[in-house]
């Protein structure tokens, strides 16, 4: 059942409407009363979650008898951004994922944010699916703030992602959807995978299976589940950042999600005018490349790769 979560009038004969698709299981013999929310599309240039929402909706719609509880799917928290290939909300300066929990006394965007929080609040689990931006490709991963790691890691393991990145807390992140929901007791997992403006079906299929596995573990799903892989957890491991030191075109030589040794080549930056190599980019540590640059033009400082180091690098 399609429901409106938030709505506001746009200038000319149109409303912005944030919708969700609610699936209520018909397995009424043992109603769990549980609710899981799957949300995506805060950033309008991140589309990987579109595929997951569509696929999950299709599975649930055809198997309601196997569902015990409620699954709410929110495919587009920033519908105008997705529609216009805009990362933020058009005509609004701030990143939508920096205005939560919102306020009903604020701008239109802040009012929408408050309505979204109100609607998701109280769910047993919320999964917030992000892609990377257009510049970087990410391996499927769950990102968890260190202050909620103990509580969330057991659920994150159920999602079938390659690894779980437990990152340090930062004040600026306190205005994200995930932080806001976790701070009011609604457990929220952030998934990052793929690249902006594209859909990687392999990753989407895997995450959909992972969400069904999570539902099964919560006692909400009686259908078949594919086994999920055991993720690597970043705790006690260093994450190495590789930034370009030069401006030019980045040509990768290392493969995404491959092992690399300290000093091995990640790629090179070349000058498009002269053809000269401006920089040979190398890995700062032994590990696995979980982030790799997708967009070729770089300035000094552009992120080239992130390397998940071994335990010895902690």
């Amino acid at each position, binding site marked *: 059942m399609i429901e409106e979560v938030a709505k*506001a*009038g*746009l*200038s*000319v*004969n149109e*409303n*912005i409407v944030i919708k969700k698709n609610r699936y209520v299981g018909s397995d009424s013999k043992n109603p769990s009363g549980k609710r899981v929310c799957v949300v995506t599309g805060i950033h309008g240039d991140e589309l990987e979650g579109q595929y997951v929402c569509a696929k999950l909706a299709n599975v649930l719609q055809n198997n309601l008898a196997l569902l015990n509880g409620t699954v709410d799917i929110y495919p587009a928290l920033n519908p105008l951004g997705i529609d216009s290939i805009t*990362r933020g909300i058009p*005509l*609004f*300066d*701030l990143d939508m994922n*920096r*205005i939560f929990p919102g306020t009903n*006394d*604020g*701008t*239109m965007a802040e*009012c929408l944010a408050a309505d979204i929080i109100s609607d998701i609040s109280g769910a047993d689990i919320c999964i917030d699916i992000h892609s990377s*931006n257009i*510049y970087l490709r990410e391996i499927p991963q769950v990102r968890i703030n260190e202050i909620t790691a103990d509580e969330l890691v057991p659920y994150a393991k159920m999602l079938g992602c390659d690894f779980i990145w437990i990152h340090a807390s930062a*004040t*600026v*992140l*306190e*205005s994200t959807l995930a932080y806001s929901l976790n701070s009011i007791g609604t457990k929220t997992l952030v998934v990052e995978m793929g690249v902006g403006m594209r859909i990687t079906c392999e990753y989407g299929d895997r995450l959909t299976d992972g969400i069904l596995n999570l539902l099964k573990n919560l006692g909400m799903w009686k259908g078949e589940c594919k086994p999920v892989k055991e993720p690597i957890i970043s705790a006690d491991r260093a994450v190495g*950042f590789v*930034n370009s030191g*030069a*401006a*030019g*075109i980045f040509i990768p030589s290392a493969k995404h999600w491959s092992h690399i040794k300290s000093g091995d080549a990640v790629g090179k930056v070349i*000058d*498009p*005018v002269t053809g000269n190599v401006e920089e040979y980019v190398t890995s700062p540590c032994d590990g696995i490349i979980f982030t790799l640059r997708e967009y070729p*033009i*770089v*300035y*000094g*400082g*552009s*992120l080239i790769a992130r390397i998940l180091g071994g335990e010895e690098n902690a």
Partner: protein
Amino acid sequence: MRRKTLYSLRSPYRESMDIIGFQFGQGEKTMCVVGAMRGNEVQQMYVCSQLVSRLKDMESSGLIADNCEVMIIPSANYYSMNIGKRFWTMDNTDINRMFPGYDLGETTQRIAAGIFESVKGYKYGVQLASFYQQGDFLPHVKLMETGFTDHELMKCFGLPFAFIRKPRPYDTTTLNYNWQIWETQAFSLYTNATDNIDEPSAKLAVDAILRFMSANGVIKTKIPGGYITEMLDEKSLLQIHSPVAGIYKSFVKTGDEFRKGDILCEITDPLDGSVIRQITAPSDGIVFFRYNRPLEFEKTVLYKVIPI
């Protein structure tokens, strides 16, 4: 006056971007003013350029105080300005959300780090700021409350209003916030223009900054005029939202005083021209902020009002 390149960034396709600072006087790092960090902050750059011009004359007349060094940075992001973008040219990030910066980080983190290395350590810092909401403001000075900067110093600008803002999480990566963490008494100064040059408010801003410098012994001359500043908590402003979307026609402008029940604006249907709603004043007040676009959404903040 000494013109210095504070930070330089290479591009594969453009001439390098050199962030230029103008230094006056010698001695202790006393006063730093930063202008445009976003590509549309033309007024903010203009104010700084006028300040450079005035300080150049003052320096040649020996009016910069002894043992005081002043730095003015008119534009920290002319790459975006030259191509008509508000945020960073390639990845659309905001330099003013990257402080204190990181010299081994991403491009705008490196730019922020380069700027911060040059601006930290000054006793006083002023940023010519612009706001994320579209509209006209009364010129004012704002202090982000971190517990470091002395509130009373805001009166030295002689602007009609001064505001104290409680920082929100996204404020913690701005220049103003980090300046204070590194023990600079920092202020944000807002004129009533961004994309366009408004001469009267630019002159007001230049005079206000010079008045502050005079009051704190940085320059050896008096700047006449100025207001008795009213200090307000930002939370005391009353926000008036639009209950409907449509074409917005305001009957008041910034600075206007109104009475409860006065009609502030009307919203008309953009297709048939009928008046959908007239918005009346909920109480007596002064228009501090006015939305300035013809089209507005439902829930748009149309006015911020100083209650009287």
